[in-house]
């Protein structure tokens, strides 16, 4: 595996392998000295063209726990603001000697262009509406912690599917693992050719939740009402929000997920995030572990076809 661009480009076995090795990386985080020398001497650059706190930090922590050097390219204060093209920026930072570029970009497909210009491994940390593969990995891992095997489990994803890279990645990953997925959204927030996706579609959240094994809420952006995609936020919340009443009808075993940041009072009622079954913090915690697994798979011994479980001498605490 050279790059991680999308879930759809992964073989099912590669997805399962990444999830299988993730616990050993989660274990590293629990150590007193949470660091292994697996990627010592390698450099990982993060190149974020969109603001993101959690994803960038998560990758940075993951790289540091593997002893990689990290290099943050701050787009807002760099030559990008002086009109430098993505290609020139990428070639410039690669010339400094880096092994992987973690990129977030507002343009769908931008990481595909990047792979044509650089030799480094490219990890897609979110491209436009398209893909966010490490989010899907951490979501799968978190769901497995709650539900075990995802085969034949029913996962309900609610919200702005059309503009969501999280939804596109999660649908691909969940269905690859055998889960049944129902998307719940107003028709205006679904992709135009939704009938070609391997999912069920509903416009009735209450009905969809009756046999849900997990519920995944997407962030709803205010600007959607200006585009006439929804009448207003009040109606959206009434029809598609996880209100307190809806949350109270869920079994306690049904995990409630959200990629963050949450809009309390819009897609999720103000007090619902405090319920025990909300696993948003687990998602964040697991994000570091799956990103360690991804970096190790791309840059560590996993990338050369050797056994991907870290050998003991690498797994020992550094120092």
């Amino acid at each position: 595996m050279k790059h991680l661009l999308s879930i759809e480009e992964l073989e099912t076995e590669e997805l399962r392998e990444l999830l299988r090795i993730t616990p050993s990386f989660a274990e590293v985080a629990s150590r007193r000295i949470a660091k292994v020398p697996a990627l010592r001497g390698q450099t990982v650059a993060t190149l974020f063209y969109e603001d993101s706190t959690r994803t960038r930090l998560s990758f940075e922590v993951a790289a540091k726990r593997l002893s990689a050097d990290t290099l943050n390219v701050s787009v807002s204060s760099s030559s990008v603001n002086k009109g430098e093209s993505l290609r020139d920026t990428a070639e410039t930072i690669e010339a400094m000697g880096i092994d992987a570029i973690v990129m977030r970009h507002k343009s769908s497909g931008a990481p595909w262009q990047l792979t044509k210009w650089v030799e480094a491994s490219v990890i897609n940390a979110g491209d436009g509406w398209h893909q966010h593969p490490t989010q899907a990995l951490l979501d799968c891992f978190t769901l497995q912690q709650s539900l075990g095997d995802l085969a034949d489990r029913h996962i309900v994803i609610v919200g702005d599917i059309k503009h969501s890279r999280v939804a596109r990645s999660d649908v691909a990953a969940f269905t690859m693992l055998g889960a049944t997925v129902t998307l719940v959204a107003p028709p205006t927030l679904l992709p135009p050719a939704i009938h070609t996706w391997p999912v069920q579609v509903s416009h009735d959240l209450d009905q969809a939740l009756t046999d849900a094994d997990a519920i995944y809420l997407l962030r709803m952006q205010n600007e959607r009402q200006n585009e006439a995609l929804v009448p207003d936020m009040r109606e959206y919340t009434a029809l598609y929000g996880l209100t307190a009443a809806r949350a109270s009808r869920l079994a306690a075993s049904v995990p409630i997920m959200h990629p963050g940041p949450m809009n309390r009072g819009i897609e999720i009622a103000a007090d619902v995030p405090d319920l025990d079954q909300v696993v948003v913090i687990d998602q964040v915690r697991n994000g570091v572990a799956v990103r360690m697994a991804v970096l190790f798979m791309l840059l560590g011994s996993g990338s050369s076809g050797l056994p991907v479980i870290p050998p003991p001498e690498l797994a020992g605490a550094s120092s």
Partner: protein
Amino acid sequence: MSAAASQSYIVRGGTLIDASGTRPDDLAIVDGVIVPVDEAPSSAIEIDAGGAVVSPGLVDMHAHVGEPGDEPVETMRSAGEAAVLGGFTTVLAMPNTFPPVDTAAVVEHVRILSADALCNVEIAGTVTVGAKGERLAPLGELAAAGVRVVCDPGPGIQNPLLMRRALEYAKPLGLTIAQGAEYLALSGDAQMHEGEWSSRLGLPGAPAESEEIMVMRDIALARLTGGRVHFQTLSTAGAFAIIGAASGSGLPVSAEVASHHLALCDADLAGYDTNLKVTPPLRSAGDARAAASAVAAGRVDVIVSDHTPHSSDRKDRPFDQAEPGSVGLETALSVALTSGLDIESVLRAMSWRPAELIGLGSPTDRALVPGAPADICVIDPNATYVASVASMATNGTNSAVEGVEMRGRVRTTFVGGQLVVDQGKVMA
């Protein structure tokens, strides 16, 4: 061409195809016109057309030639070489240049520049000042300067009242209004065709209906005004059906399709190759098949190159920031033949029908008969090659068919009796 075409030629062994039919025959070229072979002087050079098709020169109704204003990317010289290598002996140069062709003075300037081209260059004017879609350009002045087609390149004039006025005003001047068909209020910031692939790739899509609504609107306005409308680069099965019905009922409308829409579709965008970003966007595989059937059935009149050269920096970008367009002059004929269309339909759509639509004479005026102008191309219909922009004459670097295996290639081109391409190479 200014130089006197004193050299004579005999084109031997080919199959002649023109508006009057298909037959094996030889022809000779003396002083820029076609003559019977027995009238050729003994100094005539023999051109071997064995196994090849001899056609009236191709006419491209839709090419962006770079000059004036975009010379670092394309010039009359480079675009003209590309044209004649592709078998085109005449191109209609689009007017969205810098400055735009919205006055007689610019028409004259472009005419002077066009002396550098190896092909004939017809000049389109704009419909509105600066092609901005706000107020009418001096259409009478443009017509007097020799313009026969006016066009605001792009999605077409959005304001229906302005379009009505343009059609009314242009009608007695004999001008055809050519325009694209995209209702921007519906397509928004679309980056590709709306459908399965836009849903997967996370790119905003333009529904086929954003084209079809504009076609219906302009057909209605042609009926209202009697003005002549030519639809540029239609791309959807629905639009082909609508235009077919309208032209069948005698309305003064015609239509073209770009060659890449015959061969490529939205699924080809899976790797976000920006060279495949064109406007209108590559549509579904079904739309591409419908385009070929529409040409074969004559519902669509013309195949064009929609030659739109860019430098690499305009394409080496994320998909939504890349400029749309593809070069096409050198490959349009090959792409059309590769799509499976019969060669008679292809030549009708690329030679005598577009010539008629831009005012170069009737199909019989352009037939390969004694006395006709010696604008001729010789095509080897079975030659195969792999399209490679690096080996093309255009200075543009953006070919939508890069790496695609092509069938059918131009061997020889005469412009005004002068041999400009021989054995697939530009002469002089």
